[in-house]
């Protein structure tokens, strides 16, 4: 393991001067943010840096008396924009972040089930490049539990556009995954 607890400690100490809510927020959102950034194509180390920067920005944002509403989408938006700014491999994207041989995917209790699951994930991975960038981003944020309105705030697009993108993306994947 590497680079994990250092940013945590730094950000956590910065947050201790803030509020228990902020600390709770940090614990809740750190992982989803990391996953989102890695799915965008950042390396885990880059993602750690961006997440730390995002939380430090949030700390400054809150301590200078700014709005405490929509913190979740605020954090994702800051992280998203930082990823865009620093990312040379941004175009590489969500092409193949996973090793097909990974054994930590769920529900592998029987050989048949395992085979089925692997085939399904293989199809899914093959289908993901057919999504547009916006569709992928919408689905990734949706997978982290963001509402359409929040996704729109992160990506700077209308909620109705988010709804259309999600709808199109899921239909594409369903068609190609043949489920």
């Amino acid at each position, binding site marked *: 393991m590497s*680079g994990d607890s250092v940013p945590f400690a730094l950000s956590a100490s910065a947050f201790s001067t803030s509020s228990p809510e902020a600390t709770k927020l940090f614990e809740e959102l750190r992982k989803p943010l*990391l996953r989102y950034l890695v799915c965008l194509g950042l390396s885990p180390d880059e993602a750690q840096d961006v997440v730390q920067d995002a939380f430090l920005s949030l700390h400054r944002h809150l301590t200078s008396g700014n709005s405490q509403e929509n913190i979740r989408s605020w954090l994702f938006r800051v992280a998203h924009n930082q990823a865009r700014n620093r990312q040379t491999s941004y175009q590489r994207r969500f092409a193949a972040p*996973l090793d097909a041989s990974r054994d930590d995917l769920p529900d592998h209790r029987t050989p048949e089930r395992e085979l089925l699951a692997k085939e399904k994930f293989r199809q899914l*991975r093959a289908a993901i490049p057919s999504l547009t960038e916006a569709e992928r981003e919408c689905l990734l944020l949706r*997978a982290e539990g963001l509402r359409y309105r929040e996704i729109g705030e992160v990506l700077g697009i209308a909620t109705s556009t988010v709804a259309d993108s999600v*709808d199109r993306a899921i239909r594409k994947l369903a068609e190609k995954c043949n489920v």
Partner: protein
Amino acid sequence: MCKFSTKLIAWQDNELPDAEAAAMDQHVPACRECREQADAFREVSHAFAVYARAVPTRAASSPRRWWLVPAAVAAAVLAVVLLGPRGPANTRLEVRLRETAAPIPVAAPHETAIAVRRSRVRRRVPKPTAAWQPVEPTIQIVIPADALFPPGAFPEGVGFVADLRLATDGSVGGLVVRP
């Protein structure tokens, strides 16, 4: 194609206005086409979420063993707490402090201060009343003193090495902490 099917995904995401959602609640169970599509969309959404959540969010130095670190540290701290007061005479715990000239060995700069390596630790001097036999393999953890004690309790650079022996059933068979 059923006219309701265009709203299936937004309906599943609870993103429809109340009136439309109520209409979908009524319609979908009664419409085979919508039901089948809804199942397919739900499955793809779930698979995508599982897929996105399985991305590795930390650099892969020892991906298969990362979980041992918190487990072993917790075991070490617990053992120090539980066994410490009894003293070394009737336990296997040995705590000796000594200022070390060399810094605590860590894997690399920017990595966490706690490093785990699997190794065969040299056999320690056998004691006649040994309650357990050394079982290989052994895990060796380097723990800086300030991870166990309040800051300032020990000079900077003082650390411990915890040798954990795992019994065949996976439980911690023995623990030796040494500086």
